[in-house]
């Protein structure tokens, strides 16, 4: 059965690998910052757990959750790239990532995103943007003090 290029771009091997073998998967015991994100319409869920050191850098970051390959791969790749970054750097990366998945202009610092740019295939599937952004929404909430 022939597969479309859009589909191959959306589900690249790296993305499927992250969804099947998520990195930094698990919870961080308290004290930590935590936020829960979900997409009520599709049922995807991501919990983000993190610790910020005295210099303001994210020293540890983990996630748990369930959902589609896009939401879980995005979360897994995010944890790898965000670790060690400051809150401001994380916010800038979140905005760059949003631009990539929505096809909404060029990112400021594409290199910082690393393999996260592979998720640009989501551009062709607008309904999946919320899947790709779910972990990032939870990250933002957690950095804002969590809930």
């Amino acid at each position, binding site marked *: 059965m022939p*597969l*479309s290029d859009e589909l191959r771009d959306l589900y690249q091997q790296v993305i499927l690998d992250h969804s099947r073998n998520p990195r930094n998967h698990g919870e961080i015991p308290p004290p930590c910052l935590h936020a829960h994100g979900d997409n009520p319409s*599709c049922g*995807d869920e991501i919990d983000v757990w993190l610790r910020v050191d005295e210099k303001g850098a994210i020293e540890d970051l983990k996630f748990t959750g369930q*959902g589609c*390959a896009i939401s879980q791969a995005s979360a897994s790749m995010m944890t790898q790239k965000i670790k060690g970054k400051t809150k401001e750097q994380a916010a800038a990366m979140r905005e760059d990532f949003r631009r990539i998945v929505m096809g909404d202009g060029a990112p400021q610092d594409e290199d910082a995103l690393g393999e996260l740019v592979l998720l640009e295939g989501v551009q062709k*599937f607008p309904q999946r943007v919320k899947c790709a952004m779910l972990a990032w929404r939870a990250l933002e909430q957690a950095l804002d003090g969590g809930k």
Partner: protein
Amino acid sequence: MDWHRIRSDFPILTQEVNGHPLVYLDSAATSQKPRAVIQALTHYYEHDNSNVHRALHELSARATEAFEAARQKVARFIGAATQHEIIFTRGTTEGINLVANTWGQQNLKAGDVIFVTGMEHHSNLVPWQLLAQRTGATLKYIPVLDDGTLDPEAVETLLNEQVKLFAFVHISNSLGTINPVKELCAKAKAVGAVTLVDGAQSAGHLPIEVQDIGCDFFVFSGHKMCGPTGIGALYGRMALLEAMPPWHGGGEMILSVTMEGSTYKAPPHRFEAGTPDIAGVIGLGVAIDYLESIGLENIHRHDHNLANYAVQCMSEVPGIRILGPQNGQRGSLVAFHLDAAHPHDLVEFANTHGVAMRGGHHCTQPLMKRFKVPGTTRASFYFYNSIDEINRLVEVLHAANQFFS
């Protein structure tokens, strides 16, 4: 039956999606519309559009006649005793909310039990939760067994005199289970409980005879049975409807209005405040004519064959878990979980091959929890689907297995 010719009554089905012929397997969400229904809407707006029950002019007379004729068709279609027992609503959800806010509000009090099942759509759950909060009544559930059927022992032990209302789905939208409605209504009646049957997935799929079923209320949507969206009907036994207070107030539901108060019309008009969806009602009537021209028994048989064929073929797909009854008794849908792919990834994959399905919790979150799945993928069929299309679906499932693992 010439099902191939019947399929050609549906203009939308001839298109290609993503370079493949459309295989529409999402009729449980909404069915497609035959040309006759689409043309009836156009005809109404081009020739007869006018408000009903009000003016004395020609167009209003035509619109009113067509509107009330549709009510008679609905009454006959579901075997009501009279057309006065048919209230037009926006759909199943509004019908249930109407009953909860009128009969329920009037008759339930603290200590009473509202009885539902563990396989209800949110539309037959949330209105009762809200009613329970308002009245102090308690909501109780019949558990669902592993095979997707209701636990008959729980029905026996939990259905007692405290139960004032038993609301349950005829055919489950998430499992395909066909509940024994007649038997359940008889048991409810024996303890004095009023019954509401959610016919969203059964109306238009098999013959409905509300008097034979023995229910007090029956609700369904037009759009799942070839009618337009935004229109449905509530059947209520006249003795109950007559005693019910109005829900929405406004024009068309009153006898007289003074500054001090108002008196209300008899059912059904008491419950139809404001200008109704006239074109929708007429379209629903035409959908009924269309379904009856094919024959509900024929539709049921075709549905049944498609569902059983699908279960048989899909069972051979590696890593698949099919929910719901495995004994050949199911409505025309198959919900399943494929180990290799989350439902949304699978639905996306299928879509690129022109196959339209729904993935997710199907508005039955408690049921998903019960079966320990985050969601399922659902292929749902109607009489315009074919064996060839199910074969296409099965090919797609095999390809998805390869792609995702």
